[in-house]
């Protein structure tokens, strides 16, 4: 009996990886638990263990191969003494792998049509379907056109992860008072590798690993900010910031006011927010609406690497507490990013991610990606959607939304969070207050479903807002 060794999925969001090297050769004996190969993902180098006893009969994907899709057969383990000739090449689908009707289609959240830009499509497939060929590398998205970037600026592709790291490193070089604190930020290089290299450059005084004690270290960071330091307080994910929300709201947000303007709190609370992939109800919540309700906070949620860099630098320099909401699915995606010494994007300013005349789609973070995909699909049907990327949720750039709605007369707000009292609810209220006479249809919301996030692949897909939902809502406000 031969057993195929498949390219393993090593994390919730992994679709492909590099088969860095083989540690065993064809013909070597292996037993369960032996490390046979090393695989590199965008986050880490991982070891592949043999799960069965036998002989490594055949290596199907050579060491060094890039972009090997999850579930690709990479080797064959045969029983000792068993012959496997070339004719007997391994079946492309292993017996144990999911079959068409027995297993569901792999999780694909959110749903993105084939026409979507590659980086968005890649974000959606988790884990990748069994594939016999290596996946294409995702091409970086085109530069994000923003007024903050002069025309002749050099642009280089950069992942959201790198952009965030660079923003922190640059600000730490610039200001000795800036430090990073959180769980696994230093020696482990960040649970999602966002703080990679910071410990090496800045040392343990400025890159501080904490015990698992969010309420404690968030309070500590707020106290340090009262005293004039500039903490970047990383939450492994914002789900765990709920342990610390009292300090974010009661201590950080309100103290300037309570002290009659004496004590400000220059702190950034940052980390991934919202759904990742299949991590279920307690690890998948979007807190955008929660924090955006609080006076005294600024709330930022970038949709691409370039914005992430410029906004995080502004957040670190801001004299107020800033809640900086990142998105795990976007961490590994690339965008052309300006190589500028002091690239700052102002907090509180939206950008037009795509101009259009027929309908306004307003969103932030990963929602913008859905909106851009939807806009592309709508364009094929002759509908020109304008996509407004809010970038900052508080203070919200309401004038930018209003200006767009005055032009289009129709508005759809898109977010991953729950509908009641959500960002979309706020947008709808502001639009009817300030542009009522310009509206040709009610404002519609596309949101996460009003349920905790389910784990099952099919249900998770249904729970999240999809590109199809955005398209349907845009058509509904156009009465088409």
């Amino acid at each position, binding site marked *: 009996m031969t057993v195929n060794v498949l390219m393993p*999925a090593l994390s919730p969001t992994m679709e492909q990886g590099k088969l860095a090297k083989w540690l065993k050769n064809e013909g070597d004996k292996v037993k369960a638990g032996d490390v046979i190969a090393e695989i590199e993902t965008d986050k880490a180098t991982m070891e592949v263990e043999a799960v069965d006893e036998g002989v490594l009969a055949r290596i199907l994907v050579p060491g060094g191969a890039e972009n090997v899709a999850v579930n690709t057969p990479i080797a064959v383990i045969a029983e000792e003494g068993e012959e496997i000739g070339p004719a007997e090449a391994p079946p492309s689908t292993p017996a144990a792998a*999911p079959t068409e009707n027995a297993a569901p289609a792999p999780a694909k959240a959110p749903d993105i049509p084939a026409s979507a830009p590659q980086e968005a499509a890649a974000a959606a497939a988790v884990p990748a379907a069994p594939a016999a060929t290596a996946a294409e590398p995702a091409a970086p998205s085109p530069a994000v056109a923003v007024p903050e970037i002069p025309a002749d600026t050099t642009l280089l592709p950069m992942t959201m992860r790198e952009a965030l790291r660079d923003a922190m490193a640059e600000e730490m070089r610039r200001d000795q008072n800036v430090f990073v604190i959180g769980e696994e930020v230093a020696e482990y290089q960040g649970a999602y590798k966002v703080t990679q290299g910071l410990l090496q450059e800045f040392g343990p005084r400025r890159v501080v690993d904490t*015990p698992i004690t969010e*309420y404690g270290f968030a309070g500590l960071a707020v106290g340090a900010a009262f005293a004039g330091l500039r903490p970047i307080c990383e939450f492994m994910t914002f789900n765990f910031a709920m342990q610390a929300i009292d300090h974010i709201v009661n201590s950080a947000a309100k103290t300037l006011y309570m002290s009659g303007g004496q004590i400000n709190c220059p702190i950034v609370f940052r980390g991934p927010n919202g759904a*990742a992939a*299949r*991590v279920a109800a307690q690890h998948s919540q979007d807190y955008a609406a929660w924090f955006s309700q609080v006076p005294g906070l600024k709330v930022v949620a970038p949709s691409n690497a370039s914005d992430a860099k410029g906004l995080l630098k502004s957040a670190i320099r801001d004299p107020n507490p800033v809640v900086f909401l990142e998105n795990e699915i976007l961490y590994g995606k690339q965008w052309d990013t300006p190589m500028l010494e002091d690239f700052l994007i102002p907090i509180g300013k939206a950008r037009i991610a795509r101009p259009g005349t027929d309908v306004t789609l307003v969103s932030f973070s990963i929602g913008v990606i859905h909106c851009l995909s939807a806009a592309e699909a709508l364009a094929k049907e002759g509908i020109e959607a304008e996509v407004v990327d809010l970038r900052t949720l508080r203070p919200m750039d309401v004038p930018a939304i209003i200006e767009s709605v005055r032009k289009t007369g129709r508005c759809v707000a898109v977010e991953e969070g729950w509908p009641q009292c959500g960002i979309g609810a706020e947008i709808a209220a502001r639009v009817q207050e300030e542009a009522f006479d310009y509206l040709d249809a009610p404002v519609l919301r596309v949101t996460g*479903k009003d349920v905790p996030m389910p784990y099952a692949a099919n249900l998770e897909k*249904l729970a999240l807002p999809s590109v199809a939902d955005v398209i349907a809502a845009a058509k509904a406000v156009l009465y088409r």
Partner: protein
Amino acid sequence: MPAADRHAKIADVASAAEGAQAEGGILAFTREQELSAYRAMLLIRRFEEKAGQMYGMGLIGGFCHLYIGQEAVVVGARMSAKSTDQFITGYRDHGHMLACGMEPRRVMAELTGRRGGYSKGKGGSMHMFSREKNFYGGHGIVGAPAPLGVGLAFADLYRGDGSVSLTFFGDGAANQGQVYESFNMAELWKLPIVFIVENNRYAMGTSVERSSAQANFSMRGTAFNIPGRQIDGMDVRAVAAAAREALDWCRAGKGPFLIEAQTYRYRGHSMSDPAKYRSKEEVQRVREEHDPIEQVRARLLAGGIGEDELKQIDAAVRRIVSEAADFATNDPEPDPSELWTDVVL
């Protein structure tokens, strides 16, 4: 579900340590008791290995935290507990469910997100429950099980039915503030709860030394007057002995008891942990010298049991696990209408 109990019995080891004599910090198990421990721990080990493989194949998604190496902790505790006692833990929970007699196939089906899973596929690896088996989860927020477990104990005392809450959390979780709020209330109100710190030396990539001012977790209750025992959590007999002492203490109305079980996780924190924070030699040494299953196996062999009998147990366990994997692979996904159910009653 007629096939259910057949599968359940192999692992539910509640009360299995009854009658064993306590001597020198362990319970002297009879051969039958050793065999119960062996079967239960082996089932967890094989189940977890299979889950790891199925994760690699993309059949399981999200986070998946394996219990391999720590089997003796929950099995020893369960052997001294009654099936009416409640168990609650964090996200590294598959072993606890199996030890509580939950069906392997339904646990596995939850891991694959199928309708036959304990949470109908809606909870996943980290979130499973069984009211029938008094298993209360399955919680993803580090530290949360402590006060929840105190609440279970509050209900036990309120009803006066003599049940005890066995509440498990990790060395990392032990640094959360809510654990100490829990300790205070538990002692203040003399609640019947056994806190079990599974000290596997690491919280993700952070070793106990790097995170804990007081690394002796059995002393963490001292300020609240909660008695504590630090024990070898790789020896199922030592865990059973400490659990018996703690449960007797609780049932006598004396309030909470704290056990620090010193153990080790062989695998990464979750599937995506490259585990660069410890050496391979360290892992290898524990596996070779302290493996909880090998210890029982060696004692059984020394006590004259035949290799054959152990082989039969191994084969039976493997059958259960592969049957669970088949079920979990072929069971359909939940009906789409399930998206909207169970939000409120």
